[in-house]
């Protein structure tokens, strides 16, 4: 991107419009925003994982989870399958709009939203039947901290999906890249949330 040397060096404008912002020619500002957001999220989850591993490895040292706590591994596995499936439906939604298939986009978003909501409802049910609270030892605190943090992210993701879904139902979005950025960005976020759950499930429930 170049600008003529005789242009107003102070970025002045003569036609009543504000001057175009100077920006890098490679990264879209909205995409850059989601990168920074995900980077901050990685750090946030990193701090929760640090607390979890500190309690598990440094403080506790014995069998994990400590007696008498038990975790519903298979229920959480079902939830994992649901969430990973939602990544497939999200990808399908975006591929549909890239091919100008609006019904595919709406169906993919509805399916993703439904699967995400199911995940949250199962997690809420799990919380009510676990038999321990966040205040029950460091195990309870770190367990609810990590899974609750992830659940909050799923909730945010559901809001983004709902917004995209309403727009899709109103006929917004198109096959051109700049016309479906409103689906692409929630999609990136949703996949990030899925990746984080895979890590949480493996470390907290399985190992």
């Amino acid at each position: 991107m170049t600008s003529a040397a005789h242009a107003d060096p102070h970025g002045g404008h003569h036609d009543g419009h504000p001057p175009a912002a100077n920006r890098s020619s490679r990264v879209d500002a909205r995409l850059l925003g989601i990168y920074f957001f995900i980077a901050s999220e990685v750090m946030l989850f990193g701090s929760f994982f640090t607390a979890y591993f500190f309690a598990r490895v440094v403080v506790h040292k014995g069998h994990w989870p400590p007696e008498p706590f038990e975790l519903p591994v298979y229920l959480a596995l079902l939830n994992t399958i649901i969430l990973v499936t939602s990544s497939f439906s999200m990808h399908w939604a975006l591929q549909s709009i890239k091919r100008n298939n609006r019904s595919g986009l709406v169906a993919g978003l509805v399916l993703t939203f439904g699967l995400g909501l199911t995940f949250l409802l199962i997690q809420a049910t799990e919380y009510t039947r676990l038999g321990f609270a966040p205040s029950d030892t460091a195990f309870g605190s770190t367990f609810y901290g990590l899974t609750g943090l992830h659940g909050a992210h799923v909730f945010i993701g559901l809001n983004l999906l709902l917004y995209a879904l309403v727009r899709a139902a109103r006929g917004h979005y198109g096959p051109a890249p700049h016309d479906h950025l409103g689906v692409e960005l929630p999609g990136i976020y949703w996949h990030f949330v899925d990746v984080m759950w895979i890590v949480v499930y493996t470390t907290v429930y399985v190992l």
Partner: protein
Amino acid sequence: MKNPFRTEAEAFQFVIVMGLLFGAVALAGVLGDRWVALGVFLALGLGIALGMYMKTEPKVREPAVWDRHRAAPGERKKILVVANETVAGRALRGEIVHRTKEADADVLVVCPALNSPLRYWASDEDGARANAQERLERSLAALAEEGVEARGEVGDADPLQAMEDALRTFGADEIIISTHPPGRSNWLEKEVIAHARERFDLPITHVVVDLEQERAEA
């Protein structure tokens, strides 16, 4: 390393890769113990990270659209000059004056808006562009004193991109690239001259400007 969240499709692939990685880790943890799981995680994780690091994108060559603009024989020659801080250097000015005395020529001086990587990624280019503009205006004024009428533009921070942008509207017959001497030149370290010769099918002249020596002699 390639950002796995650059697009939705890449993020989706990353979900699958992470699913397979942590599936293997979980399986190792169930069949063996936690140390086996850690070993599997480290081995596979390192392999995936290395694979992502090594994965290079195929180079996409832009069509040589500037060929359409190139001057026909007998027309005024067009010279594209690309320079960073050396844009006001005596050696570069001397070369431009020499070329324009040989034959009538239109000269376009492009001064890339050099920026720090952080500011570049944050699209904070205002300061860099203002500095480049100032250098460019000094250089154009110095050329005008020598009787050379040249136009100027502030270009992209990447010199190759700046050249390509300029060539799309200015069908140059040759390019002059000015750099600091070897050892002090960031562009030479990045092999800008070699890459430019690879990318552009035009005669390219490399002018070395030693600003420190010029200041000492002044």
